[in-house]
């Protein structure tokens, strides 16, 4: 509408703002958006904690088993017999048997207390696979209470600490999103650029392939492809196969968008100029076209990663994706697929809010990026 007086001519007074380059402007706008900043921090924290330094944050190792099978979460206590304690602690667990249900379960045993320490020295590990250490953020001190244990989120069927396993599980789940999306970008952007740039036959072929891929409903296709992975493959091979499957099915959409962008960009002056200076096709594509589409690709990718993470979760949860001994969020959920499990070890569902947190983080970040990467667009 021409009624509205144009949005403030910010350029006039703050001439500095526009003279700075695009990415500075993007960052400047992104910082204004509190929700997006929060999402960004959340995602960084998730990757830092789960993918890089899981061993430090968790009190146990991922496969440390105990005799406490399917123990409920222990509450962190600050008062004992009405008196405030300087050091938080957890009560011990006592096994009882329900004769009617013919099931063993654990109850709180207030006669035993295990103080919780920060930076305890316990099991050995290599941080990020490199730095040997035995410091854990928190836990019971093995010297002070050798029989002690702390299961803040309870344990699973093999008596492994769920808190630890959720942190470790994030590693594979989060990385599958990142690696899978990286592969998607590689396939999608490359084919999209080639298709848009060369047009004609190449375009036709790529177009038909993407159309063919989009004819499938993607989750059932994932499921069918994942089910086709031979069960005797090693877990790592399954993991990479799964990542590749996710990328193979998902690249079509990105390729189509990038193609559209390239079609509009290739008529722009700077591309024509580069051509007239004698740049060859590949140079024009990778030096001029892909950078032109970068902001677009970043936004699409950020918003697509949650889909990848959820796809892995859904597949593994159904027993079609990752399988033990690998640990991912989906694998953790696999253990609660039955109604019996939900009835008797509902704490295993704590994984769900953790997954949802990551999804929200990505969505907030992606939304913010979309607004920020179009700094001249305004509202």
């Amino acid at each position, binding site marked *: *509408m*021409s*009624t*509205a*007086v*144009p*949005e*403030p*001519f*910010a350029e*006039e*007074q703050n001439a500095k703002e526009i003279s700075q380059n695009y990415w500075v402007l993007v960052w400047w706008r992104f910082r204004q958006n509190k929700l997006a900043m929060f999402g960004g921090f959340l995602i960084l924290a998730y990757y830092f904690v789960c993918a890089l330094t899981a061993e430090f944050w968790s009190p146990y190792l991922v496969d440390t088993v105990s005799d406490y099978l399917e123990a409920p979460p222990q509450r962190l206590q600050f008062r004992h017999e009405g008196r405030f304690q300087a050091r938080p602690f957890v009560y011990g667990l006592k096994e009882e048997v329900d004769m009617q249900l013919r099931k063993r379960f654990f109850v709180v045993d207030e006669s035993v207390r295990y103080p919780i320490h920060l930076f305890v020295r316990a099991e050995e590990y290599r941080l990020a696979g490199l730095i040997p250490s035995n410091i854990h953020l928190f836990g019971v001190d093995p010297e002070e209470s050798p029989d002690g244990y702390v299961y803040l989120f309870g344990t699973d069927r093999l008596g492994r600490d769920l808190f630890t396993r959720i942190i470790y599980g994030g590693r594979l789940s989060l990385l599958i999103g990142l690696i899978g999306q990286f592969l998607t970008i590689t396939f999608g952007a490359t084919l999209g650029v080639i298709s848009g740039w060369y047009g004609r036959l190449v375009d036709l072929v790529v177009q038909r392939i993407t159309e063919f891929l989009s004819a499938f409903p993607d989750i059932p296709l994932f499921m069918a492809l994942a089910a086709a992975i031979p069960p005797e493959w090693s877990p790592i091979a399954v993991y990479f196969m799964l990542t590749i499957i996710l990328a193979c099915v998902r690249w079509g959409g990105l390729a189509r968008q990038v193609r559209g962008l390239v079609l509009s960009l290739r008529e722009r002056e700077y591309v024509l100029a580069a051509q007239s200076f004698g740049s060859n096709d590949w140079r024009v594509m990778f030096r001029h076209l892909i950078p032109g589409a970068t902001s677009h690709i970043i936004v699409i990718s950020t918003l697509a990663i949650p889909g990848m993470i959820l796809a892995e979760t859904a597949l593994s949860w159904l027993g079609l994706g990752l399988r033990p001994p690998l640990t991912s969020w989906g694998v953790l959920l696999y253990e609660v697929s039955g109604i019996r499990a939900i009835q008797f070890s509902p704490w295993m569902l704590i994984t769900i809010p953790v997954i949802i947190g990551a999804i929200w983080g990505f969505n907030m970040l992606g939304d913010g990026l979309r607004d920020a990467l179009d700094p001249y667009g305004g509202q």
Partner: protein
Amino acid sequence: MATATLDSEVLLDIRDLQVHFDVRRGTVRALEGVNFTIRKSKTLGVIGESGSGKSVTARAIMQLLAKNGSIVSGEMLYNRQRDDSGDSELIDIAQQPSDSQLMRDLRGGEIAMIFQEPMSSLTPVYTAGLHIGESIQLHLKPRQTVGDQMAKAIARQNRIPREEARQIAVEMLDKVGIPRPEERVVSYPHELSGGQRQRVMIAIALSCGPKLLIADEPTTALDVTTQAQINDLMLDLQEEFGMAIMYITHDLGVIAEMAEDIAVMYLGRIVEQGTTDAIFYNPQHPYTRALLRSIPRIGQTEGSRLEVIEGMVPDPFSIPTGCSFNNRCPDVMPGVCDARMPELLIAGDGQRAACLLHDPDTMQEVTRARVH
């Protein structure tokens, strides 16, 4: 109702209209006291550079300002003639809520508007006939013929039946010079050319017999030949329907042809208003003079350069103090023009100009200062 009275010649009298827009960086004073009058059945040309507030004025009259805009003060006195009784009443449009029944009756019914973008001013999924019919059914009341049962029933519903509305639509399309109107009435906007779409817009606007037609740069988006045709059409229809036209443009050539009166706008103010002859032959405001010097003339000496107005239109947050034109004015009086706000005063051939050069008090002071 306003207490003021109007000359019976006057259709719309705008007095000290101020419109502000709230934007993130503060308040934009889009209109800072606009004054002009539109005479019945006459054309007022409103001219000015982009950003001068022409379109905002038009939308203020229609009560169609964007959500962040508001009429801060001023009056817009509309002289409403009752067709049946011949009585007239004064309505202050500035006081009417945008979505009130009265305002909706005025919009489209008595004050119609056509826009700059004929390409996108029609809803793409509806036919030309539907657009016109929608307006007719909304504003025209069926005439009651005594004893006619049908007509009575219709009158009770107070709506012209669809078939009749379609008939009027066809007639209107014929009037605005669209060939084969019976076929065109079921055409979708994308099947019409730009000129045809603007004709349809005019047909919609005139279908309800408005007293005032606001044309906001109606030909800017059209090619030159079509421009002339549309302008001729508007003049012809004005003769036939007798409505007043407020013609907004930045094209001085067009305005000379179309308008009896001209108002020149600069940065949300009227700087000069008068008859077309007075403005063209004896401009009093330095801005008007500069505008006129910037049009190319036939017979201009070869090699002589077209004059331009020095500088740029300032942005709405850094409007100079005093006369807002002082930073670009060739006749600026330092120390005077940047300190004092000129008012619209009679000057030249009966027109009014807002320039301190025509303010006797100011000029006396200036002369006295020079003497000392």
